[in-house]
């Protein structure tokens, strides 16, 4: 069972390579079947992982059998399980969507890139090692650029991909710089090792020994740099400039992946960085506190302005783009709030946002392309549920629970402004959402001609799955009032740095 994280990664990697080999041959059907079955397998593995984690606790996996500071280690706990689950689920939906809406020549590339992206995402979320984090980020980034450039005959796609690529690469280089700084001063790249030494910098750890230099200034610089990188990756204002460009041109199937995996790594990274690697007892705790309040302020400003922009948009892709910025900013403010309620609310919010975006995008495609009345209606329903979920003020959608949990967390730390900003942003976003909804409720969209390979029946399957999951998820919360406390408890466990250190290094800090 320990090998689960590695097996998820290997599953996606093998799928990508197998698909690329098949892509050179003429086996069209085999390729589609392999793509679908590998994504189902991945989802199953993620589900098994999640089940195992909730019942047995976290998983540590060493590559090559080397003990942590020496080799690379994968660590899966509740939070990474959730992120793994949502990205695997999005891959399944995205695969179906690509199958339904893309020509074979395009989708064979999308499959490969999607699997590579997922490999990177899983490497990122399971990684217990900062250098591996960097390598995974690069894999995520390059697959994301390539997905953006998928329709290479359109100039807009190439332009967006290039700007995204240059900005993204320069930013990830800073992550490399941060890794070098961390290695230079701590003499290790293992997260648990860094976490331990950032609390007790006289500690001796097998294989990596003592710290090498003066860790406090180096930690400050590294923390600031990595934070910046993560903010860029999640498109938090003012680092958001690439996101709307990319969202305007990326194919729907790719966009579903972005909103539920590639763009979330920033949130996940901040969570790991501020709660586990540099926990509240670390040597630079005052700087950490400053950064956290700075991040809170930044995320709130970002939330507010991006929501204002959502209110102004009339095109669906722009709405989704700016609303993603807004929702991720809200999630960021939840992550840095510090209490487990807010953190679990943020995680739930990210999940809700992914589901909502996928619903809206799939529904929009069906609604715009289908000529069948019932199919168009299904598309309409899907868009409505998606928007209501993003709006999130009805308990029948998960978006409500995430906002409620975050409000609870904010009130616990006495941050009334946070609650106000969340609700204000909800209102501003709602203007954009509902204006769009009322418009398409009565008017025919300008009908675009679907591509030749388009199959509306196939597209309706992911929509039905999405609707079922969205409603079922929130119904399970309503019917089982003890689900949320379980989530909160598990989140609390995954945000404790002493537990993290013990699970990875076998050392109890402070003994």
């Amino acid at each position, binding site marked *: 069972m320990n090998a689960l994280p590695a097996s998820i990664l290997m599953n996606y990697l093998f799928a990508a390579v197998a698909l690329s080999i098949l892509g050179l041959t003429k086996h069209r059907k085999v390729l589609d079947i392999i793509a679908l079955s590998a994504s189902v397998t991945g989802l199953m593995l993620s589900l098994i992982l999640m089940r195992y984690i909730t019942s047995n606790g976290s998983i540590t996996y060493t590559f090559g059998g080397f003990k942590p500071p020496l080799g690379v280690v994968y660590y899966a706990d509740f939070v990474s399980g959730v992120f793994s689950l949502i990205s695997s689920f999005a891959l399944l939906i995205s695969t179906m969507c690509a199958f339904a809406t893309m020509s074979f020549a395009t989708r064979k590339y999308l499959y490969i890139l999607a699997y590579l992206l997922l490999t990177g995402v899983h490497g990122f979320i399971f990684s217990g090692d900062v250098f591996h984090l960097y390598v995974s980020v690069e894999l995520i*980034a390059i697959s994301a650029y390539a997905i953006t450039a998928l329709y290479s005959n359109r*100039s807009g796609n190439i*332009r967006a991909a*290039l700007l995204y690529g240059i900005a993204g*690469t320069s930013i990830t280089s800073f992550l490399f710089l941060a890794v070098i700084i961390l290695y230079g001063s701590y003499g290790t790249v293992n997260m648990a090792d860094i976490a331990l030494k950032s609390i007790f910098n006289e500690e001796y750890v097998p294989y990596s020994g003592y710290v090498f230099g003066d860790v406090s200034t180096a930690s400050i610089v590294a923390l600031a740099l990595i934070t910046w990188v993560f903010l860029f990756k999640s498109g938090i204002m003012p680092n958001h400039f690439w996101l709307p460009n990319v969202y305007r041109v990326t194919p729907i199937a790719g966009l579903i992946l972005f909103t539920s995996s590639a763009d979330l790594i920033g949130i996940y990274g901040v969570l790991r960085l501020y709660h586990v690697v540099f926990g509240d007892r670390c040597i630079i705790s005052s700087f950490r506190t400053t950064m956290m309040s700075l991040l809170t302020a930044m995320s709130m400003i970002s939330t507010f302005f991006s929501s204002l922009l959502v209110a102004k948009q009339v095109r669906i892709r722009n709405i989704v783009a700016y609303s993603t910025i807004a929702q991720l900013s809200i999630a960021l403010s939840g992550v840095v709030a510090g209490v487990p309620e807010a953190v679990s609310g943020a995680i739930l919010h990210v999940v809700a946002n992914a589901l909502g975006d996928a619903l809206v995008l799939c529904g929009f495609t069906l609604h715009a392309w289908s000529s069948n009345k019932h199919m168009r209606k299904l598309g309409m329903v899907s868009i409505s549920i998606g928007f209501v979920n993003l709006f999130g003020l009805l308990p029948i959608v998960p978006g409500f629970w995430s906002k409620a949990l975050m409000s609870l967390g904010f009130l616990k730390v006495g941050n009334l402004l946070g609650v106000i900003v969340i609700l204000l942003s909800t209102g501003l976003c709602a203007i954009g959402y509902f204006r769009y909804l009322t418009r398409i409720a009565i008017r025919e969209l300008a009908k675009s001609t679907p591509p030749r390979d388009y199959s509306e029946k196939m597209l309706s399957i992911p929509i039905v799955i999405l609707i079922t999951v969205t409603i079922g998820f929130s119904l399970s919360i309503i019917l089982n009032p003890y689900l949320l406390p379980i989530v909160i408890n598990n989140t609390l466990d995954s945000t404790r740095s002493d537990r993290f250190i013990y699970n990875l290094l076998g050392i109890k800090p402070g003994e």
Partner: protein
Amino acid sequence: MDVMVFAFTAIAISFAINIAIAAYGIFTDKSLLKKLISLIIFSDTLAAFAVLIGFRLPSVLSDYPSPPILTNIPESVDYLEEISAKAVDPVPQAFIITAIVINFAVFSFLLGLLLLNYKYFGSVNVSVIEEEAGDEVY
């Protein structure tokens, strides 16, 4: 020895300055090609910086640092100790090989994008491209 410390510090800081200059080029130059070149300079500086961090002077000054490679098959543990007393740190070197391959991959992809971009817009200037693209409707 003080001169040595000063010289090393100066080299290290000059790396930092080089990083900043390269980054300045990335963020302010309007030509995408020059941005890309700045990016390459940037990442190479980082690699060199990493090597510098893994560098060492052995305690006996006449002994030059050696590469982290055993020259013959060790006969005893003492030989390993001897090597590790004067070899430089292998870990940053392994890091930069990984980083170089990654950067090679990313840059060649970006260069391809740049070529195609040039085909579409006839320019590598950011503002010209923005002007040409205008508000494209999708």
